[in-house]
């Protein structure tokens, strides 16, 4: 992209663009689908829910893997990430290894589930790789020490919780839709715990980044009061947190069976939208510190 004033580059707090603008938008979707799919597989594997596991696997492989590949400048060279020694230090390389192992072992596990067989050691191995698949994106971003919003240990935890939460939500929705809602109350417990965890970690994450550094403060102000405030308050807080929380409280009070099913679907949809918006904001307002002293600190 041609910059009209190249001499002002990195003079102010500068947001990263490569991982969110133009083709970068695919990476945002890739992280979402990879973690949602792996989260869905992880949760459903505890209940031997073969259709939910298959759906999670497909979301991860087709949507997650596909968008990941489309994002790359040279998708046909992706194999280099597997054969290079990059995995020693690069989280992207490690991530590809985790995703590949998860998809390979996961395919075998799903095949066995459809044959009404469940090998416990295999399931444990697949779940370990599913968990690593969920967490690697957070670690990849956490390694970037120039962006305080990302460079925090809370980010991988937030991504794990949101990945598992989203996975549990879709698993519940699928079980209700397919009439196999015997697992519903149990998955609902997952959702309750993960939702509470998400709210708590999200709050601690935002506050810690806000007071951690000046660039972090700029990022949080941009999220809460700046250009992206509407997206944060309406989609993340209202739809993504308050709406699912209200349904969770309702089902906790009256029981899952008495909770209207359309309301649960709406809550699941809102939760996923909130997760997407959260990830978008984290990528969008990742600000770097200015390189040079300047009085002009506005974005």
């Amino acid at each position, binding site marked *: 992209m041609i910059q009209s004033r190249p001499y002002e580059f*990195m003079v102010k707090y500068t947001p990263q663009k490569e*991982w969110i603008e133009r083709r970068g938008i695919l990476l945002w979707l890739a992280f979402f689908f990879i973690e949602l799919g792996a989260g869905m597989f992880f949760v459903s594997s505890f209940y031997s829910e073969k259709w939910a596991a298959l759906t999670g696997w497909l979301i991860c492989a087709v949507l997650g893997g596909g968008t990941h590949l489309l994002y790359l400048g040279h998708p046909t060279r992706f194999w280099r990430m597997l054969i290079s020694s990059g995995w020693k230090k*690069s989280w992207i390389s490690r991530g590809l290894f985790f995703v590949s192992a998860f998809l390979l072992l996961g395919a075998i596990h799903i095949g066995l589930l459809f044959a009404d067989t469940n090998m416990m050691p295999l399931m444990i191995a697949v779940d370990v790789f599913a968990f690593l698949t969920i967490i690697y994106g957070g670690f990849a971003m956490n*390694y970037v*020490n120039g962006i305080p919003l990302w460079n925090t240990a809370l980010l991988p935890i937030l991504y794990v919780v949101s990945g598992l939460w989203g996975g549990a939500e879709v698993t519940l929705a699928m079980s209700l839709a397919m009439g196999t809602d015997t697992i519903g109350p149990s998955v609902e417990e997952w959702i309750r715990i993960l939702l509470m965890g998400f709210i708590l970690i999200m709050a601690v994450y935002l506050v810690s980044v806000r007071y951690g550094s000046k660039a972090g403060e700029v990022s949080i102000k941009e999220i809460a009061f700046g250009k992206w405030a509407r997206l944060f308050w309406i989609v993340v807080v209202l739809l993504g947190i308050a709406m699912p929380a209200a349904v969770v409280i309702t089902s906790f009070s009256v029981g899952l069976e008495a909770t209207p099913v359309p309301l649960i679907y709406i809550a699941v949809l809102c939760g996923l939208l909130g997760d997407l918006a959260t990830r978008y904001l984290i990528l969008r307002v990742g600000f*770097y510190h200015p*390189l040079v002293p300047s009085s002009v600190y506005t974005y």
Partner: protein
Amino acid sequence: MRLGMAIEMKRCIGCNACVLACKAEHFLMPGVLWNRVIVSESGKYPVVSKHIYPVRCNHCAEARCVDVCPAGATQQRDDGIVWIDDAKCVGCRYCMMACPYQVRVFYSGENEEYFPGQGLTEPEKLGQKLFPHQKNVVEKCNFCMERIDAGLAAGLKPGVDRDCTPACVIACPTKALHFGDMDDPYSEVTMLVKEKRGRQFHPEYGTDPSTFYID
């Protein structure tokens, strides 16, 4: 040998000769800059300071871009030069994220012509033959390693002999840029850094840059 650069801030007049020299040396496309001269102001009227910083890849000893590259495309040579093998780059741009100095650029191939819609000029055509740039890969300053390699092969000394020195250093009209072997205690660049207390750019990132700024 650890090749490095010292930049005397008081000498820099912000003329951008280094930027143009780099563009000419590597036939860089429109919008692609391997080095920049960034200008800022601090303070309040009437006490105002103007800061002019020539910036380029710092060729950090602890380069985070090398660590994060999943394909092994970003590599570090024994002389400290960090370079990108564009035949290996997958275009994931993780290195761009990891660089706290933001000195890398992604060339998407969208802007090839300096005169849009009028085709390539003769120098641009020549550039595509002499220094072909791959599309959809990350690029950055390589300390003119082609010049250095050719110079070393001819028995020349980096930073001393013109043909073994980066183009930006040669082009600087005020001699604000100095280049040489940081491991040689008697090289001009090492002496300058020691005598004038050169400081690394944002050492808090823990990357141990090979570029030093002298106030």
